[in-house]
């Protein structure tokens, strides 16, 4: 449950005043400024001309003796770095490295600027190390014990918003050699421990052990809203040890539930509104490549924006359907338009952004297009070696030519 502010600063305000110092160690007081201080913490970007909006923490009981007449802040920069430190654990109790950040001085303040935004919910320990610097030598002397303050950013009171918005393949009958699921979320999700929240449950309510390929590098899209969940290919591939020992994760004739836990946090640290379940039955394995020449095609008429419609005898990979088919005119220029995938990924439509003109066109299809069992147009998921040479030299794209009249 972490809410991270975009930018957050802790500030020591140092108010110069030529008052009498009480410490016995100090002599020659006119060489020094005594600087009373307060600690302030403020989110940047609200109100202040520099984007700083201070709110003050207690300033009752301490002061930092710093600097001097006509301070040259650049010269004392190193000294200032040790003046304020911020920790995530109590440095008086355990050895802990300070938070990365920089102490910056101006005429009236010292500011600790953390290198990364502070996180809400984390208790920060602010250590102020008072010192006195001689105007002549810039040499520091300890004046008092360190002061400590704690600071905790209020947790934002966020409501859960994330849900599972779609799972592909969307149909409820899937082959036992199913290769992957795409899980779409309504909001960006937290990454790093996805396999803790995803379960495959058999019809007796028992969890299938390790059905998925648990990669440290999780297969997300850019926005962390779509996760690609691969079934363990070792269990699918004929004759590999996992295949022999454990067999397929899915068995034909049975039904399973893909279960996503609702306590999976989104990127804001909030759990989902609810968990998600997809119940599906399992059919025998699919080992045949999709063949574009077996697809049903409906071509549009000139002067309209009718869609091109392809229908497939089986569900194909939803993500690839969105991406690997393009329409070209006779000059092989790519036609702009929108793609719609429907009917459990057995139907692909392309609606052009301008009316069709009479002439010759072609659909270009990358042969990486797969069905849900990883059989691509180029080659089945696994091949008998005796066949393999026939497939290796296959084309990267195939074309379906059509003419609009």
């Amino acid at each position, binding site marked *: 449950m972490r809410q991270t502010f975009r930018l957050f600063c802790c500030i020591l305000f140092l108010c110069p005043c030529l008052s009498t110092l009480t410490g016995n160690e100090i002599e020659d007081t006119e060489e020094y400024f005594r600087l009373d201080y307060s600690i302030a913490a403020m989110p940047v970007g609200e109100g202040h001309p520099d984007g700083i909006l201070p709110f003050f923490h207690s300033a009752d009981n301490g002061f930092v003796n710093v600097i001097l007449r006509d301070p040259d802040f650049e010269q004392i920069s190193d000294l200032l770095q040790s003046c304020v430190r911020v920790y995530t654990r109590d440095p008086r109790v355990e050895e802990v490295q300070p938070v990365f950040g920089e102490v910056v001085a101006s005429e009236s303040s010292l500011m600790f600027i953390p290198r990364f935004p502070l996180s809400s919910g984390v208790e920060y320990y602010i250590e102020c190390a008072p010192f006195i610097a001689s105007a002549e030598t810039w040499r520091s002397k300890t004046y008092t014990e360190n002061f400590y303050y704690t600071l905790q950013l209020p947790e934002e009171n966020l409501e859960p918003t994330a849900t599972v918005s779609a799972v592909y393949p969307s149909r409820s009958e899937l082959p036992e050699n199913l290769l992957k699921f795409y899980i779409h979320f309504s909001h960006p999700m937290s990454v790093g421990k996805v396999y803790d929240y995803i379960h495959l449950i058999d019809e007796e309510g028992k969890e299938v052990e390790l059905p998925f390929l648990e*990669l440290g590098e999780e297969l997300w899209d*850019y926005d962390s809203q779509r996760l690609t969940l691969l079934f363990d290919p070792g269990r699918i591939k004929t004759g590999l040890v996992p295949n022999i020992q454990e067999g397929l994760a899915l068995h034909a004739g049975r039904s399973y539930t893909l279960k996503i836990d609702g306590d999976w946090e989104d990127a804001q640290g909030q759990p989902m509104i609810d968990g998600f379940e997809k119940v599906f039955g399992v059919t025998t394995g699919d080992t045949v490549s999709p063949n574009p020449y077996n697809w049903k095609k409906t071509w549009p008429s000139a002067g309209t924006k009718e869609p091109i419609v392809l229908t497939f005898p089986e569900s194909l990979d939803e993500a690839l359907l969105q991406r690997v088919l393009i329409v070209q005119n006779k000059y092989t220029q790519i036609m702009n338009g929108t793609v719609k995938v429907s009917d459990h990924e057995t139907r692909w439509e392309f609606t052009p952004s301008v009316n069709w003109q009479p002439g010759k066109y072609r659909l270009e299809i990358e042969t990486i297009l797969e069905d849900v069992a990883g059989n691509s147009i180029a080659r089945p998921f696994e*091949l008998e070696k005796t066949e393999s040479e026939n497939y290796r030299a296959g084309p990267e794209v195939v074309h379906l030519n059509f003419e609009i009249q």
Partner: protein
Amino acid sequence: MKIITIRSICVMVASLMLASLSQAAHHGNASKKGSVELSSSGSLAFGPEGVLFLADQKNARILAIKTGDTKVANRGGTYKINDIDAKVAAALGTSPDQILISDVVVNPTSRNVYMSVSRGKGADAQAVILTVNAKGKIDLFDLSNVSYSEAIIPNAPEDKITGEGRRASNKRMSVVTDMSYVNEQLVVAGLSNEEFASTLRAIPYPFKKVNAGASIEIYHGNHGKYETHSPVRTFVPFDIGGDVHVVAAYTCTPLVTFPLSDLKPKAHVMGKTIAELGNRNRPLDMVVYSKAGSNYLLMANSARGIMKVEAMSLDSFDGIVAKVPNQEIAGVPYKTIEDWTGIMQLDLLDPENALVLQQKEGGSMNLMSIGLP
């Protein structure tokens, strides 16, 4: 994590083969100086003269950063840092559950240790490179003014991207599962979040203005009968019989070898299966090293201790051609070093020690140096 391990091999084989890889139009940039804004920090690898390769997969690029960390050291320090994830979190000003350590590598020149870390777990997580010394002091590697160059890894065929909904919401991304520099090229194993076909890219370094790279389809023979695409989880260049080979562990568990010279543009490389991990056991990381005149391969995996293989056995092993009996690991002779458990990341610290990122029960991480077996 492996480049140090094969430096001597690199010298032996020099600049042959992939000089001709200058097709495959991947854009790249000449070296420049300035601030590097990372969108993500994934795999790391060191190249020559302190060059750190870094996979920024959200930006679909690999950066080559001149660290300037070139002072030669023959030995690394003694690392025994408990709860490194908590210490990293403290330095980054957040809680340990917000830290992901993607990779840990040793600069083979200076023996300094670099970590690839995400701070935060959402889409707005910050990517950072940290260094850590043997005393446990963690520093931010400053990317605000560095000399660097980059190689772009194509995601969707970008020249075909069109507007108005056509591919406008392209969700395809490749993750880099491992990288290694050998023979003036960076070899990069990638896995797509869409099509299953896997690639090994060999990208000549220094990256050229129009960067060259070759995408190679990887297959593996499955007990002589079947062949399949296989994404590479981790790999290491390795000298077998005097030639540089790639020893690659697949996500589906076979361990295969193929000559580096097989990596030609548009090639379909078929590996020789030399071992297979048992079920519930995933390859995680590998290094090679020399000891007492022999070369060894060390592989971390998810279920057992570290697996140690002598190079000589790879040279003479014919490959698995029959069904594997019902055992944990089949193929080349190997030793299991049971003490090394929970090893997530593995690199050579110096000629006598490995550096490991070890996950303890309960999930916390230790960064340790351990004498090579």
